[in-house]
């Protein structure tokens, strides 16, 4: 089948502002959007630029806006979209070229929430014990691949770019609710800031965008409750 592909393109060395380009691409229904983009790049125009690596939804490179929703190009198929497919860079983030956005601020926010286990007790000789229930408590938030689909889908982030964003909160959640971690209080202080969890308006765009199926709004609500309940 022929797919009518529109791509929002921008080359800072040539263009003053982004513009749409159209391509008619021969595709199979089970093709990924990534396959369609590759066909354009390899057969028509090598300058079409996007990030990708694993091509099966685990590395997080190829998040972009596809038919108006943030998706991984390697995890959405042509038959899920129909013959008309439009692709644009993740919204609310500075565009470097075509579908490639600047991730520096996104990763800086991730780093700001202490996204690592803190436990200064001398470790035992063997593993620290953790019950299956305690392990399950933070399971959902371990799935995050830092693709930025959620944060760049969030209207609160569009309105206020200093908002730490759902991805960073999910990664804080992953440690706040890990029974082995001792720094929940510090992370909750960071997220109690005006650019922390309170900017979430439970719009659920993040949940719709997450390619890993993480219940992000739930995680944000759990962190918010923990901030309210924390001993002062």
């Amino acid at each position: 089948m022929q797919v009518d592909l529109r791509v929002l393109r921008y080359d800072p060395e040539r263009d003053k502002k982004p513009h749409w380009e159209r391509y008619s691409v021969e595709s199979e229904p089970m093709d990924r959007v990534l396959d369609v983009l590759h066909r354009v790049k390899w057969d028509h125009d090598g300058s079409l630029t996007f990030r990708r690596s694993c091509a099966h939804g685990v590395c997080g490179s190829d998040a972009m806006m596809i038919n108006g929703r943030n998706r991984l190009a390697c995890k959405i198929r042509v038959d899920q979209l129909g013959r008309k497919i439009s692709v644009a860079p993740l919204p609310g983030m500075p565009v470097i070229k075509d579908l490639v956005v600047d991730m520096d601020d996104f990763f800086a926010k991730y780093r700001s929430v202490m996204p690592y286990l803190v436990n200064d007790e001398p470790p035992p000789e063997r593993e620290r014990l953790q019950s299956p229930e305690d392990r399950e408590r933070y399971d959902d938030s371990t799935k995050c691949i830092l693709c930025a689909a959620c944060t760049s889908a969030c209207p609160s982030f569009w309105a206020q770019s200093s908002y730490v964003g759902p991805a960073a909160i999910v990664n804080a959640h992953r440690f706040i609710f890990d029974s082995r971690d001792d720094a929940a209080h510090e992370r909750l202080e960071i997220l109690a800031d005006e650019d922390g969890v309170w900017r979430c308006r439970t719009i659920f765009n993040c949940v719709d965008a997450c390619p890993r199926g993480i219940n992000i709004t739930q995680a944000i609500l759990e962190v918010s409750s923990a901030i309210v309940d924390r001993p002062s």
Partner: protein
Amino acid sequence: MTPKPTVHDYTAVIVGAGGAGLYAALELARNNIKTAVLTKLYPTRSHTGAAQGGICAALGNLEEDHPDWHMYDTVKGGDYLVDQDAAEILAREAIETVIELEHMGLPFNRTPEGKIDQRRFGGHTRNFGEGPVRRACFAADRTGHMILQTLYQQCIKHGVEFFDEYHVVDLLRDEAPGGETRGVVAYRIADGEMHVFRSSAVMFATGGFGRMFKITSNAFALTGDGVAMCYRRGVPAQDMEFYQFHPTGIVGIGILLSEAARGEGGVLRNDSGERFMEKYAPTLMDLAPRDMVSRAMYMEIREGRGIGGKDFLHLDLTHLGRKVIDEKLPDITEFARVYQGVEPITQPVPVTPTAHYAMGGIPTNTDARVVGDEKNTVVPGLYAAGECACVSVHGANRLGTNSLVDILVFGRRAGLSIAADLAGAGELPALPADAAEQVTGELERMRTRPRGENAHKIRVELSEMMMDRCGVFRTADGLKQLTLELRDLHGRFANVRVNDRGKVFNTDLLEAREVGYLLDCAEATVAGALARTESRGAHFREDYPERNDTDWLKHSLAFRAEGGPDIRYKPVTITRFEPKPRTY
């Protein structure tokens, strides 16, 4: 006249930010050594994150287990081409590295007592081959993702300095024997500027080169950069003829469905529904090593027992039940749903072998120091670990999960070796003024050439011919033909031009550069495969179907030379287990 590159001085440089690179970086940070980690991706995009099933360590949390048994399985799984001193280290240090990862926060699945849970995996046995053992520690079926995340988190905690989206394009070293290492040249993807990282210690942790095959589980980024850069600078490539095909790839696109699916009880079936592995490996059946299972699958297909007579088979998980599938195999069953439209809870999944893992690579000793000849002479200042390296712990065929053990054990050892070698080190090496000139010229010619070959077409042709003639089955005739075809592709590649003429984020240019690396890796692979007139592990010669220990119990080393690689050999280290026939 090319613009002058920006020069950075670092005590140590690590190329690649997967498990091996990150573990080494962490050790260097703990030793306060000024280190730059360069990656052409972002660290969390590295292919370690795609590893699914588990990491083996003889913790014995669920049943009796010993590092000796793990070592034996590794040696036998590798068809006795494994260096046994390395395998012993792998099996022993697997335990402490898994425990350390847990201490770093890795969210392993747990037993009811709260210990790390363990499951069965291909080729891992109790008591020297008696039956399967529960040795693979796991975090659902995203163990690699959790390892990558945990190590990256710890690197952030320890202030490791990353250069994300810096594509390393050349190794700077004095190519004379004993010559020093001087650093690397990197291309900053964001703006196309050249950067030289001056350092007397360079570690490669760049992963594999599965993209030389048409059907592969490997990410697009896996183009053999480190192996090829070393090969071009006088370092041989070891055991390149041993390339593993994983039995269960998604038909047509090669995405992996983890061996954990069979570890949890999944079985392979042919067109008549027969569990055909009973015939080929009566004891371990579906959990036999990957080379054997992949060959068995091709035999079934050749004899007309593929599904509907076609070139694929079924992976049957339907008897496992929804609970096991949802709790222990959620990701891979989702792959089947997304990429094949199959519901694994009720339907068998169509699978075919997929190019998966390079046993060969940059030769190193057990301290992750690169060795440059048949006498294992250390190349000063050069280190390698992970899939790009060949220690050799995998010999002729790697066991499932041992790739993750390898990156951790030898990634850490690389960090410790660099730290030890740098203790008391003085000034950085002198750098010639034209250090970046050669590679800058190569890239500029590709970018600005008015007419020329299309790199993508060359890559497609390469991957098809490698799949056909250097895959699971090989013959002298096919490999000779391939040698000539590769020479032709190399010739065409010298005249590549790219479509994108810009400086900003020119992935067209870098993809073309990567095709050159793949061609070099393919050249060494084919030369090794043609020379080795026996069948061992993943290298199967139809014209020489038996293993031949008298003539071939030795590692190959491919040195780059005019007119094709010069293949030399070095002995295998055998300490405890004499080669025996390999049955399962």
